[in-house]
């Protein structure tokens, strides 16, 4: 995984107004197309995805990615520690936004499994922050026990960006996911309720792009 190179990515996204390629030990992309947004995964970290437990696969065209988890599980009840009811995993994505105006749709699919006793409930929540946009968006999806099956939810966000730098910009896109389980009226002495996340799949589909000046050929 390329995570080592971009260990400071989260901080950079919060405090830097622009993030240029000079910030990277090596470019995150071999080549970038002139007319669409491409992405790669810089860091994956959180209580639900400590080092060595997440795997990242980016599509060859750099417009989609899959993250899988081996320990992303929130739980309450028998066998659970008091802090296990909430786990999170934050993805820091490096995006290359082409010069000009781009309009894109980011779609993220979350898949997992939940075992919730009657009376228990659970929440999957994701917060989205795209550098260059003032807006932070979050979406929650709730589940109620009794539940014992796979779950899948999809979040879709519109992204409109204007990039003035002549050759496009690297920007960071943060997705902070979390799982919460609430025991509610369920029996926590003898039963356990839990929720896992198996995978997170992202997809950036550039639907409109307008560039007013071409970059010089290398």
């Amino acid at each position: 995984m390329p995570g080592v190179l971009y260990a400071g990515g989260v901080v950079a996204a919060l405090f830097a107004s622009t993030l240029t390629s000079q910030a990277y030990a090596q470019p995150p992309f071999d080549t970038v197309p002139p007319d669409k947004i491409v992405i790669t995964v810089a860091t994956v970290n959180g209580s639900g995805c400590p080092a060595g437990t997440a795997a990242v696969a980016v599509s060859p065209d750099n417009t989609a990615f899959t993250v899988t988890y081996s320990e992303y599980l929130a739980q309450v009840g028998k066998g659970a520690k008091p802090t296990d009811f909430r786990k999170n995993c934050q993805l820091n994505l490096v995006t290359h936004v082409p010069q000009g105006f781009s309009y894109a749709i980011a779609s993220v699919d979350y898949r997992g499994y939940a075992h919730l006793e009657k009376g228990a409930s659970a929440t999957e929540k994701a917060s989205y922050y795209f550098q260059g946009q003032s807006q932070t968006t979050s979406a929650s999806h709730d589940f109620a026990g009794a539940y014992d099956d796979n779950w899948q939810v999809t979040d879709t966000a519109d992204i409109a960006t204007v990039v003035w730098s002549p050759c496009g910009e690297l920007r960071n896109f943060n997705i902070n996911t979390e799982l919460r389980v609430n025991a509610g009226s369920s029996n926590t002495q003898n039963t356990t309720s839990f929720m896992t996340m198996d995978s997170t799949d992202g997809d950036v589909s550039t639907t409109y792009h307008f560039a007013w000046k071409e970059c010089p050929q290398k």
Partner: protein
Amino acid sequence: MSGVLLAGGAAAALFASAFTAQGVSSAPDAPPEKIQISVNTVNGSGCPKGTAAVAVASDNTAFTVTYSDYLAQVGPTSNPTDIRKNCQLNLGVHVPQGFTYAVAQVDYRGYGSLQKGAKGTEKASYYFQGSSDTASRTHDFSGPYNDNWQTTDSTEYSELVWAPCGQDRNFNINTELRVSAGTSASGTTSFMAMDSTDGGANTIYHLAWKECP
């Protein structure tokens, strides 16, 4: 395992709802050019880092994954969350230009030890990266059961889910094992394993071909 493929190539993003096999009536032969199947990642609660092995067949149309620690269980010595384990494979299938592919058959093998009244399930979910469409197949087992098990997911050619033509998206297969105690006697253990002990047979993915328009 390395998670990033940086192979260039341009493709428009779209969703799997456009995948069809319309107008295709018979399966053409595999293309003469060599194809490459890569297993980009293998990860999940049933196959944490270092517990899965991958072998690609010499003809590049099938591959095998073996597991050393893929076991779901219920019983006095298990954790409550051991009732369900999963393992997700992310596959890169690099096809000759003008061809696409679909997964036509998947074989799963393992071992089950289910007490009377207990139940076990093997389930696999299939989807292309970036698509919300998920196809799944489920196979159930009932105790008493104490033997190897084998399941096959197969699809008629006309109903295959094809990878989008002109696009280079990875394919995900999320397998899972579940065990429920049901009415089995308390104090007993029931479990389902995928390739638990002998490292033999495995999960084999057969690929089918058709020509892009």
